[in-house]
């Protein structure tokens, strides 16, 4: 057998033939006999007491099967759980009912669920429900919500502060005393709507007799859904099967438990009919979690030469109206442990306030905490450069953790970086962009009165979310290992079961490449299976760029168990000792005698017929492995963005974008590049296009796709990519992970470029989004002065 796809080659994706011919199978494609449609009536008010709900007219409408209010569900389902309650904080978790019981707390809070023969009828009936509200005062901004006298969302959460988190290392006060330069800056990381192209939804089917709930849903982590669903509904885990196969993008917004999937499940159990619920897009905008929404007050202590010696951060995170499943972990641990970025900053103190407001809940969104941290530290590097009149690349180099300092423990000691060579990626990026020439071009442009800017981001990322002990120490309610089963069949075909749950990241291909590398089985003979809790051992899912580094490693270890067993069986069949054979591209032969060989298929068959097994070796070739790495991985890179601003319209156009990333070893360069492209676009979009805006009454003004601007094909140019390779020492393949890198890096890169472009006008900082209007205002104010 010949290896058909060596590790490191850009083979085409095996998932694509289905998807390009319309044969994908997403949740909305599930059709079951007797299936009903569910529509959720949502609150139009951001904060109100429910006085009365009259469903009588609606119930009488054609096609309506049942209508449930919050009160009807109280006995059927527990509140939506919050599963990350950070250590180092005094967290208070308010009760969040899947349908509001007497108070609605954000526009979009569920009030009633209508089940009907089809969705059109369900919507008709939802419109006919008469709800009487008594409106209450509303607060949408986290800083307002903390003030004395602000409207209170919950009696149990005074001043709306759900938690205060603190982490520090070194001696921050001393650092500020000895510093040559100290300054403060407020940085706002605005609220975003994730916008996976497939909205969230579920099909729940509870079977009478077997008492089994089958739940198809758009989740990044089916096992977490099963686990929490079981806790919330009292249906034993043994009786719940969660299926999530083709997922139309997640970006963090499909990690959390969704009220809708809980409601559909318990109603299916109640009515013994399959229930489908799919969000409309506008519904998705209020009912699925948002991302970011921080106000970060930063204090910086630096020396004259540009070295940053101290960093104090006070962050106010808007959590929305309740604490979503993983939400508290995002602005606390995930945010604070990357705050010093690629830089050796010995003294760091962080305080984070998680604040409840009358808005949609926030939770993970591509990068989750790390983009906020990276934006912060990368803007700080530029501010230091500006204030000390140094080149931004020099300030970065001054502060880089040297390549011989790994593993490197951050100031608080909370986490240690695996490996890195930060100068190398920056060198390569500067070479690609031709930095000297670029600065000349900028001088020229400025002489002509044009606004032309260059921005950098030399980011790091915590990836491969793991290990479980760290998760526990941080208060995450689960583990972060990953599982894999490698099941060789008698014909030599192989099924891989993996606990990860991709949404387009290509593991159906890269995992086959990994297995091919280990066992030599042609990728055509390998099937990668995910998204079925009945088939797959416990796994934690796909987020935090962890799938390949953690799940891929589990696969490699399981494959190695298979390989060892095959060598034993092969040696036995060849009548030599296991020490005398080698495993070579899928077959086992005697050392130095390649013609004395047993093929992969022969050994597989022998393992299953078990006519002639070596002593002590059990039949079958079916191995599982739970991999819990000793550490996270830390990809890094240097991104450079060049912008030119049209003074008249204020529009910032990206002229060039160079990205040099180090994601460790690369299984499939084409797929890695694709992840980087998509990530860059998403990060750039935060800086210049996207923002979720509420008015003072808590109405979401950016409430439809006609108002909320996600990037289009014409928004940004082609990106120029390259890579360096610094393997991660903590997993067998030296993988770091790539899913979030682009997003994390690109937001500060373009903001630094835009601020650089505007710096001749005296602009040192302004907050995102750098929309044309905002830039025009800055240019205009300057003209006015």
């Amino acid at each position, binding site marked *: 057998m010949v290896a058909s796809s060596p590790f490191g080659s850009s083979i*085409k*994706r095996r*998932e*694509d*033939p*289905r*998807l*390009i*011919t*319309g*044969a*994908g*199978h*997403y949740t*909305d*494609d599930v*059709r079951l006999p007797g299936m009903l449609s569910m529509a959720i009536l949502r609150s139009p008010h951001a904060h109100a007491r429910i006085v009365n709900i009259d469903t009588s007219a609606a119930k009488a409408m054609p096609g309506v099967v049942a209508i449930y209010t919050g009160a009807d569900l109280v006995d059927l389902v527990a509140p939506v759980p919050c599963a990350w309650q950070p250590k180092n904080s005094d967290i208070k978790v308010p009760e969040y009912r899947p349908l509001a019981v007497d108070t609605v707390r954000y526009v979009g809070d569920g009030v009633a669920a209508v089940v009907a023969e*089809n969705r*059109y009828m369900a919507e008709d009936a939802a419109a006919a429900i008469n709800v009487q509200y008594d409106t209450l005062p509303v607060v949408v901004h986290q800083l307002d919500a903390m003030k004395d006298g602000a409207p209170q969302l919950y009696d149990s959460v005074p001043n709306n502060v759900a938690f205060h988190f603190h982490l520090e290392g070194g001696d921050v006060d001393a650092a500020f005393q000895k510093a040559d330069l100290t300054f403060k800056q407020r940085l706002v990381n605005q609220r975003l709507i994730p*916008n*996976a*192209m*497939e*909205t969230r939804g579920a099909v729940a089917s509870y079977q009478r007799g077997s008492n089994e709930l089958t739940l198809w849903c758009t989740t990044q982590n089916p096992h977490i859904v099963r686990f929490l669903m079981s806790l919330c509904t009292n249906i034993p885990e043994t009786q719940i099967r969660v299926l999530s196969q*083709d*997922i*139309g*993008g997640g*970006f963090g917004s499909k990690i959390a438990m969704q009220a809708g999937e809980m409601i559909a499940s318990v109603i299916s159990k109640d009515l013994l009919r399959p229930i489908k619920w*799919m969000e*409309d*897009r*506008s519904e998705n905008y209020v009912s699925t979690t948002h991302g970011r929404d921080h106000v970060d007050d930063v204090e910086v202590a630096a020396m004259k030469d540009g070295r940053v010696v101290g960093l104090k951060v006070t962050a106010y995170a808007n959590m929305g109206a309740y604490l979503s499943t993983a939400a508290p972990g995002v602005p606390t641990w995930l945010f604070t442990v990357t705050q010093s970025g690629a830089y050796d900053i010995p003294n760091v103190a962080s305080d984070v306030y998680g604040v409840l407001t009358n808005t949609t809940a926030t939770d993970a969104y591509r990068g989750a905490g790390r983009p906020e941290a990276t934006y912060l530290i990368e803007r700080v590097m530029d501010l230091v450069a500006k204030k000390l009149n140094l080149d931004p690349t020099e300030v970065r180099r001054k502060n880089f953790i040297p390549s011989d300092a790994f593993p490197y423990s951050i100031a608080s000691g909370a986490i240690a970086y695996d490996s890195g060579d930060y100068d190398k990626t920056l060198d390569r990026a500067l070479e690609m962009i031709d930095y000297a020439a670029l600065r000349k071009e900028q001088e020229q442009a400025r002489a002509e009165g044009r606004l032309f800017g260059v921005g950098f981001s030399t980011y790091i990322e915590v990836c491969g979310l793991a290990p479980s002990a760290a998760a526990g120490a941080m208060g995450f309610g689960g583990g972060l290992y990953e599982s894999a089963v490698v099941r060789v069949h008698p014909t030599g075909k192989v099924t891989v079961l993996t606990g990860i749950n991709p*949404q*387009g*990241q*290509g593991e159906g291909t890269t995992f086959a490449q990994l297995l091919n590398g280990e066992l030599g089985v042609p990728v055509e003979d390998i099937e990668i299976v995910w998204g079925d809790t009945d088939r797959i051992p416990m796994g934690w899912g796909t987020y935090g760029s962890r799938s390949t580094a953690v799940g891929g490693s589990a696969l490699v270890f399981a494959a190695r168990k298979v390989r060892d067993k095959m060598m034993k069986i092969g040696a036995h069949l060849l009548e030599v000792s296991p020490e005398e054979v080698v495993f070579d591209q899928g077959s086992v032969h005697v050392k130095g005698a390649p013609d004395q060989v047993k093929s992969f298929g022969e050994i597989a068959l022998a393992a299953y017929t078990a006519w002639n097994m070596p002593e002590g070796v059990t039949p079958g070739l079916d191995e599982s492995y739970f991999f819990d790495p000793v550490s996270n991985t830390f990809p890094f890179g240097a991104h450079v963005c060049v912008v030119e601003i049209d003074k008249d319209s204020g529009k910032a156009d990206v002229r060039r974008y160079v990205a040099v990333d180090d994601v460790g070893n690369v299984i499939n360069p*084409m*797929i890695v*590049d*694709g*992840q980087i*492209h*998509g*990530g*860059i*676009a*998403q990060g750039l979009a935060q800086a210049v296009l996207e923002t979720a805006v509420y008015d003072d009454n808590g109405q979401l003004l950016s409430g*439809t*796709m*006609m108002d909320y601007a*996600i*990037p*289009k*094909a*014409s928004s*940004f140019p*082609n*990106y120029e990519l390259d890579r360096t390779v610094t393997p991660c020492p903590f997993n067998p393949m030296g993988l770091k992970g790539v899913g979030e890198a*682009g997003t994390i890096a690109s937001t500060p890169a373009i903001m630094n470029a835009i601020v650089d472009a505007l710096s001749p006008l005296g602009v040192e900082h302004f907050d995102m989004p750098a929309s044309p209007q905002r830039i025009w205002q800055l240019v205009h104010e300057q003209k006015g002065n």
Partner: protein
Amino acid sequence: MKQQVTITVNGTTHTNEVEPRLLLVHYLRDVLDLTGTHVGCDTSQCGACTIEMNGSAVKSCTVLAVQADGAEITTIEGLAKGGELHPIQEGFWEMHGLQCGFCTPGMIMTSVNLLKNNPHPTEAEIRHGLEGNLCRCTGYQNIVKAIQYAADKMSAEPAAAGDD
């Protein structure tokens, strides 16, 4: 009051009684069970629902099934002919023009029209031509390459180009 419609989809003619308010996308997905055409928005922005109707790309979420009475429709399921991928499908595969694949059927169906209007588009023309299709995963770079691949291939073998 239900209305009778007769619609030819991917070469097969269907006659059904439908409510006038039924959107064409729901007719395709729920009546004909052709689930390759997706729904990504409710404001006609995303293009995930794009199909070909009487030779032109349209957003099937913004057409009533009754308006399509008598129409010839091609959906993503009907694009590959005789088991052979359309060059645009091939381009998406070759160039890694998709990740989650949710936008892909619509992207491909729009691209068919784009290349029909303009068989040799520049990069900028491709990007402009995709204005009505949103992709959250790819950042569009490889989608542009996929269409360039198809344009090259279709001009090399003109037989494939005229296919609708």
